[in-house]
């Protein structure tokens, strides 16, 4: 980046602002094209891959005139680029069509179920970071020790385990045998009609309304699926933390701090970890995005009424509008989180703000 040779130095100062503008513009173009690409792919999946989308909606036993009418309504007789244009316009206004299964507009359904997924993924990420970061730091500090091997093993299993299987087994153990947790869904049926959520995040709603009994019930529902997701993100976070910390601990400032006589704990937790924190934030943001994806299978196991369950239910009923709407939303959130972590990284790392 710093190609400031003496010859161009005069221009260099003047063009700094415009260069920054260009990089912001380039960034925006990247985000917009990625989003358009996302819509193009979902359009392709919904309209081009099925041999006849009209038949997919009405079924192959429908009379010919019904099929023809649906084709007209869907605009399938128009050229493909025109169809894509219409699709684009609809998608950008949040119109993903109507769900066959629930008979509501897909966007309305998604708005209803999305908070449940966000709440689950958030609690999962908190659990993952809360345990993953200290474990990674510990593994890096005691490199090669038994603890290091153990953390590595925990991580490897987290990478290798089918989460839906682990979910089923944990249900048998913690719900059926020990009866520590509640199941299914987000809240007990007793409270379901007396409790009026405001934000859609039940834990926060319960606190705001001072309903501690409900809070406890919601907590008992969320803790097992969130722990599972947390375990998956722990595997990733602890591995990356270890790698970042190893990198930091071999730097010269650590030697300087030791020479100054600072305590080892202070060096590790205050000096090294603070420098490792910048890339770690990106890692945690990315693991948050992947938890939104991981929730598809987890929600199915725990009957968690979120976006994942919505998508799988729609899949089972061949409800393509709902499936693609959910896919677009998850994809958009994915892109959004990537962008956000990119911006955060640029803001937090002093080396990138030159």
């Amino acid at each position, binding site marked *: 980046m710093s190609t400031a040779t003496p010859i161009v130095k005069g221009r260099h100062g003047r063009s700094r602002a415009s260069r920054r503008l260009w990089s912001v513009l380039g960034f925006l173009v*990247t985000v917009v*094209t*990625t989003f358009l*690409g*996302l819509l*193009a*792919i*979902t359009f392709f*999946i*919904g309209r081009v*891959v*099925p041999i006849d989308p009209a038949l997919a909606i009405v079924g192959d036993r429908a009379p010919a005139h019904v099929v023809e009418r649906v084709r007209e309504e869907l605009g399938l007789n128009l050229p493909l680029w025109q169809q894509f244009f219409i699709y684009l316009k609809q998608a950008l206004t949040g119109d993903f069509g109507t769900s066959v299964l629930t008979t509501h507009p897909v966007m309305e359904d998604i708005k209803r179920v999305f908070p449940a997924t966000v709440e689950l993924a958030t609690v999962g990420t908190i659990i993952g970071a809360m345990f993953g970061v200290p474990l990674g730091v510990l593994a890096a500090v005691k*490199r090669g020790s038994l603890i290091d091997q153990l953390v590595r093993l925990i991580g*490897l*299993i987290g*990478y*290798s*385990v*089918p*989460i*839906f*299987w*682990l979910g*089923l*087994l944990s*249900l*048998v153990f913690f719900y*059926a045998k020990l009866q520590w947790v509640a199941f299914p869904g987000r809240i007990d049926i007793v409270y379901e009609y007396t409790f009026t959520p405001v934000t859609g995040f039940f834990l926060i709603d319960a606190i705001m309304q001072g309903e501690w009994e409900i809070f406890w019930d919601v907590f008992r529902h969320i803790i097992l699926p969130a722990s599972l997701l947390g375990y998956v993100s722990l595997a990733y976070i602890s591995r990356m933390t270890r*790698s970042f910390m*190893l990198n930091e601990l071999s730097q010269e400032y650590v030697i300087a701090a030791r020479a100054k006589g600072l305590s080892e704990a202070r060096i590790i937790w205050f000096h090294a970890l603070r420098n490792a924190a910048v890339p770690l934030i990106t890692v945690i943001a990315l693991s948050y*995005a*992947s938890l*939104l*994806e*991981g929730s*598809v*299978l987890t929600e*199915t196991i725990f009957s968690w009424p979120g976006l994942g369950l919505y*998508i*799988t239910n729609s*899949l*089972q009923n*061949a409800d*393509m509008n709902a*499936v*693609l709407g*959910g*896919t677009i939303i*998850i*994809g958009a959130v*994915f*892109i959004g989180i*990537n962008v956000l972590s990119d911006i955060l990284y640029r803001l937090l790392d002093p080396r990138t703000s030159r």
Partner: protein
Amino acid sequence: MSGTVNSSPSLREWLLSDRPASRRQARLGRAYVIWRRFSENRLALAGLLIILGLIVVAVFAGQLAPHDPTQGDLRYARLLPPGAEGYILGTDDQGRDILSRLIYGSRLTLMVIILVAIIAAPIGLLVGTVAGYAGGWVDAVLMRITDIFLAFPKLVLALALVAALGPGIENAILAIAITSWPPYARIARAETMTFRNSDFIHAVKLMGASPIRIVTLHVMPLCTSSLVVRVTLDMAGIILIAAGLGFLGLGAQPPLPEWGAMIASGRRFILDQWWVAGMPGFAILVVSLGFNLLGDGLRDALDPKEAGQ
């Protein structure tokens, strides 16, 4: 391999010679060094053993399986617990031996990962090398497309694709392959960029080689080793996604003994007959752990800089 090497020390010297007399000797010598680094890592060896075991079981499924994987004994052998006579891992609700189903299921697992690798790796290699070698707007366009696919969550994209294509193992493989190639393109491009302007490429160009010849014969072979590592590391993820699709009923259809679908069919009995869903999940865990260990070991052996990170 190690057996023959240990028996004759002169062979070892020949392999480690600083001045190999032939290209073959140099290649074998390099492979030997990598193998030595690899075999020092016990976990990596365990991973290799698991994968070799999987291949052997898949090849000899017909000889190894004690029972028929699709036809069960509905009268006398429904939902028997593990350890029951003749059924080491128990039976499922149709009276089928779970061990036999797992053994036959290994063929499906192997088929999925091999086909995904065969479809996705060449696509990634082609896109990446062409983008890296051509540069300019070709590079910009190809990498933009790659980034768009990378921005998609894999499982969700695979789900939507299978939903459109219709359930079935072939479509599941296709969907997974379509979601798997972008990282390979990224790696191949990065590798290509590092030697695009090196002397040997210039030399070949001066001799009049066409860009197609340069990319296919001189660029692609150099990208394969890092690609192999990445594909091996991805195998575990591919197995998990395939199992997830199978679990949701979108992958292999019954009565095929696909492991993910077996978990789904055992879900109803999970509280009383845990083994019906428990065993296939354990098989998935072991195999994907094997691929993760093998991939880690390969990466460390091929690229010592990264070791321990």
